[in-house]
């Protein structure tokens, strides 16, 4: 078994695609139309294009418990998942300039540094750097 996909629940796939590509900088890899306007929509890191794919899935739109869980995590400030970056401070500055909202500014904890932002699609996301 291999790990190839990380699922991120989003309310609006088109809006999520824009945010994750235009703001965060991911690349679209697969966009397969399914019924009811839903898509199998995956993205990859530009610097690791054969690495794991992010799956932007419209679960909260169709499955109430998914929406409930997503809301609860968001309100508690808990990130859905995290992405590695080389420099959290630099990425924080870059995203702030693009209007991204952070709930946790760059913070050091042990051997890591991290920050948490709002992905505008219903989730908190964490960026992390190993010190």
């Amino acid at each position, binding site marked *: 078994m291999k790990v190839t996909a990380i699922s991120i629940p989003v309310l609006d796939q088109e809006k999520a695609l824009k945010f994750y590509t235009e703001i965060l900088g991911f690349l679209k890899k697969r966009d397969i139309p399914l019924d009811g306007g839903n898509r199998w929509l995956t993205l990859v890191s530009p610097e690791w294009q054969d690495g794991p794919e992010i799956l932007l899935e419209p679960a909260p739109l169709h499955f109430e418990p998914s929406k409930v869980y997503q809301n609860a995590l968001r*309100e*508690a*400030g*808990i*990130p859905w998942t995290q992405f590695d970056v080389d420099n959290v401070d630099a990425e924080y500055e870059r995203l702030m300039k693009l209007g991204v909202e952070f*709930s*946790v500014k760059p*913070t050091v*904890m*042990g*051997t890591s540094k991290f920050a*948490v932002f709002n992905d505008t699609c219903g989730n*908190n996301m964490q960026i992390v750097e*190993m*010190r």
Partner: protein
Amino acid sequence: MTFYESEIKRIKESCFSNDKQIETVIGMRNYIDNNYESNLNLDFLSHTRFVSKYHLLRLFKKHYGVTPRQYLIDKRIEKSKELLLNKLSVTETCYAVGFESVGSFSTLFKTKTGKSPSQFQKEQLSRSKLRIES
């Protein structure tokens, strides 16, 4: 303050309050990052930090979740990918990142990445050629 922020604060105080210890392991990691191509000299590290070698090993594993040896191997594999992309031969790459046997380097590379070094190089280079042409 959100639930997450208060948890971070709590965990930081309970697990990561020993700044000197954290500074020590970060120093070790920097040392490995800067000297990955040579043999790990933990005696040297433990002398400069005035602590025992075994204490250092335990500390590193406690904070990074992997042993210095495992960290070093991953570092070397990452670097070898870069060198292979820069068209160095498998043998040159092997020695340049600090491995001493081409056979064991190839086996390790395949275990870690799913491909042998030559396979990896061939695929990546033909892919970048495709990208340029298209």
